[in-house]
C-alpha cells in the first residue's frame, strides 16, 4: 500500500482572512489601492515550501497520495530486520546442527511477526529435535547504518522416541546489532533459550545460549548470509555451530 504523505496546503482560515484583509483591505473597501498594495500584487510574496513546519494553531491539513513521494525502504536484513509493514521475507537456514525455515511478516515499520520451524536436518534429518515457534521481533533505528533488533519466540519441540514423541516447551530471547552498509551487513547476536519437558517431575527449565556473528548481502529481493556461533550450555562443553542463510522478500 502506498503511504500517505501529509501536505500542508492552507494556512489557518482566520489568520489567512486577517492577512488578506490587511493586504486587500483598501480594495475590499472600494477605495484606491495604495502604492504599496499595488506593488505587492505585482510582486507576489514567495509561498512557503510544503515541507516547512506548519504555522500557528488553527491551521488546516489536507492528506492524500503524493504521487511524487518515494518511500525510503530500509536495506533488507535477515538478522536485523525489519520487514516493512505488509511485507514478508521467507528464508531458509542450512546449518550444523540446526536448519530451518522462517517467515518474517511486517506488522508495522518496526515490528515483525516471526514464524519458524527447525530440525537437526544435516545431523539427524527429522529424527532428532523438530521445533515450531512463533513470536515477535522489533527493530531499532531501522533506517540507520547502525541497526538493532530484539526477538522473543515461544514454541514446541518434538522428539521422536521409541514409545511416543516427547514434547518440550521452548522460549527464546534474542538480541542482535550490526552495521548495515551498502554492500553488506555485519552483525552480532546473542540468544538465550529456555527448555522444559512436559512431565510433572524432572529437572524443570534448563537453558542454553548462542553467541555469534555473521554477514549478509542483499541482492535485489534476495538476501544471502553466513553466520558462525558458539552454542554454550551450563556445565557442558561449548560447541561451534554455523549456518548459511538465504531469504527472499515477497
Amino acid at each position, binding site marked *: 500500500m502506498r503511504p500517505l504523505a501529509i501536505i500542508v496546503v492552507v494556512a489557518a482560515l482566520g489568520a489567512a482572512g486577517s492577512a488578506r484583509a490587511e493586504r486587500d483591505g483598501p480594495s475590499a473597501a472600494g477605495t484606491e489601492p495604495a502604492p504599496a498594495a499595488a506593488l505587492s500584487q505585482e510582486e507576489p510574496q514567495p509561498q512557503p515550501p510544503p515541507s516547512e513546519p506548519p504555522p500557528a494553531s488553527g491551521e488546516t491539513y489536507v492528506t492524500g497520495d503524493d504521487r511524487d513521494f518515494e518511500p525510503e525502504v530500509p536495506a533488507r536484513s535477515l538478522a536485523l530486520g525489519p520487514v516493512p509493514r505488509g511485507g514478508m521475507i521467507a528464508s531458509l537456514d542450512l546449518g550444523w546442527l540446526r536448519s530451518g525455515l522462517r517467515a518474517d511478516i511486517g506488522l508495522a515499520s518496526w515490528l515483525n511477526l516471526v514464524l519458524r520451524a527447525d530440525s537437526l536436518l544435516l545431523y539427524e534429518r527429522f529424527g*532428532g*529435535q523438530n521445533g515450531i515457534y512463533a513470536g515477535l521481533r522489533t527493530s531499532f533505528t531501522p533506517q540507520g547504518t547502525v541497526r538493532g533488533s530484539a526477538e522473543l519466540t515461544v514454541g514446541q519441540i518434538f522428539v521422536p522416541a521409541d514409545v511416543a514423541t516427547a514434547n*518440550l516447551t521452548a522460549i527464546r530471547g534474542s538480541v542482535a546489532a550490526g552495521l548495515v552498509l551498502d554492500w553488506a551487513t555485519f552483525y552480532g547476536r546473542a540468544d538465550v533459550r529456555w527448555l522444559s519437558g512436559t512431565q510433572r517431575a*524432572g*529437572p*524443570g527449565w534448563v537453558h542454553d545460549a548462542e553467541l555469534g556473528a555473521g554477514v549478509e548481502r542483499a541482492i535485489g529481493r534476495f538476501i544471502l548470509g553466513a553466520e558462525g556461533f558458539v552454542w554454550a550450555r551450563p*556445565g557442558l562443553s561449548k560447541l561451534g555451530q*554455523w549456518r548459511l542463510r538465504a531469504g527472499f522478500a515477497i
Partner: protein
Amino acid sequence: MPGSRSSAAALSLALALAACQTRDVETRPFHVEVARSDAGSFLLDARAAFRFTGTGALLEPTVLRVAGVVPEGGGEPFDVTLSFRADATGGLAYPAQFDGAQLTVTLLSDPAGKGPVGEPLNYPGFRIETTGVLAADVRQFAVVESAYEGESGTDAILVGPLEIRVRDDWTEFEPAECGPVYYDFLEVTGDDEVISLSRGERGDLSIAAPDPERWTVLHALSWHRRGTCGNQAEAWTQFAAWR
C-alpha cells in the same frame, strides 16, 4: 574472477563440512574393583549379590579394605579390598567413620556387565554400613553404576531403603557420532517427597521416618543414546548415596 569465486566457494564448503563437529558425552565410571586376599572370586555365572562382614581400614579416600571376612561355609578368613576411581565424580570418598569400624558389605557382581563403551565392568555397585545399636549411629555408603538397554529409564533401583529411578529426559544432548546422547535425570523417592536430580546434582531427603539422619544422593551421570557405535551402551546411570 570466476576462478577465485569458485575457489572461495569450495573453501567455504570445506570449512563448513569440517565444522560438522560431533561430541560424545564424557563418562567416567566409578569402575569398582574388588580384590580378595585368597584365591576366591565373587564372579559367578550370572548376576549375584554377596553379603559379608569385616573390619574396615581406609587405605586411601577411595580404597577400603574389609579385613577378617569369614566365608559362609566356614574356612580361613580373608580380606576384601573395594576401590573406585577417585576422579569419577568430584570429591566422592568413603566416610572416615569406616576406618576401624565393623562393616557389613553388600556387593553386586555381574560377569557380563559392561561399561559405557562396552568395556568389562563386573561390579555394578555395593552398599556398606556400619553396625550400631541406634539408627543414628549407622553410617551407610552406596555406589551404583550400570549400563542398561532402552531409552525409557529404569524401574526402581533399590539400594537399601532408597528407591531410585532413572527417568528419560530430552532437553539436553550431545551430538555424538552415531546419534544424540540425551542426559537423563534421577527420581528419588523419600517418605513424603520426590526429588529430581540432574547430572552432577545432589539432594538430601528423609527415607525412613524414625531415622533422624537424612540421606544424600549424588547423581553423577545418566544418559541414553539414539544410535550407538560398536559396543557402546544404549543407556547408562551412575550415582552414589550415603547417610
